[in-house]
């Protein structure tokens, strides 16, 4: 998994790409650290370029959600599709996250 953080103001879009799996713990830590260094009022995780996800990644997203909640930062998931959307739905992520732009 790779990521980039976009957005000039304090509303950030994290663009993820590739497969997001159990093995991406270091990238996930880097992403959280990068977001922690700048003022953030809202975060959108963009999954348009993510093709595959596993339960390890679901766990990381839930830790990220906890972190955002503790900092009172709204977070949302955008453009989940294919296998990723299927796994989110099986895991009832639509009840935990604001989701938009699904394909």
């Amino acid at each position: 998994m790779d990521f980039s953080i976009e957005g000039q103001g304090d509303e950030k879009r994290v663009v993820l790409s590739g497969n997001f799996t159990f093995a991406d713990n270091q990238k996930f830590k880097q992403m959280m650290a990068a977001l922690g260094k700048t003022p953030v009022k809202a975060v959108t995780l963009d999954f348009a370029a993510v093709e595959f996800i596993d339960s390890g990644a679901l766990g990381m997203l839930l830790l990220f959600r906890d972190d955002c909640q503790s900092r009172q930062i709204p977070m949302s998931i955008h453009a989940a599709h294919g296998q990723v959307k299927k796994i989110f739905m099986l895991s009832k992520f639509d009840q935990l996250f604001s989701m938009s732009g699904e394909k």
Partner: protein
Amino acid sequence: MLLTQPQFSDIRHDAPVMPDFALSFGTEIAYRADVAGMVTAALHDRFAIDDSMCVNIETCLREAVINAVVHGNLSLEGRIESQKDFESYYAAIEERISKARYKNRRVNITVWNHNQHLELRVSDEGKGFVMNHDMPEITLPYGRGLFLIRSLADSMWLAGDRRTLCMMFRY
């Protein structure tokens, strides 16, 4: 035989005939390499399984291999409830995977193809486990691996040694 048994019973003491293929990986390779992707690509090519089924198989295989490595061969629990737990968990994986006692253990993947059914077995050299049928608590960041397999495979069960997770897919 295998394919007529009821779904989701915990343990079956069957002994399948010769597999269509079998692979064995050391713990570290099973953890670091894309074993599930490689095996799924081989199944796609060899048995002409369609793409949507391959995605389900790859998802389940990846969960089964990670379980075999982390909870089986490395004997680690997976209760991650905080960022601190998360860091400790991955540190423990790296620490154990470098020790001969753990890294020399094997993860074995065996596949049978029979009458439009694929049976995959993933075994490890850990202590064995008990199948949990509970729905995972949706806000907890752990405990979804077997749930995903149960949701995507046509059936899932444990072989008699409790160290072999078996999955069946109709295609």
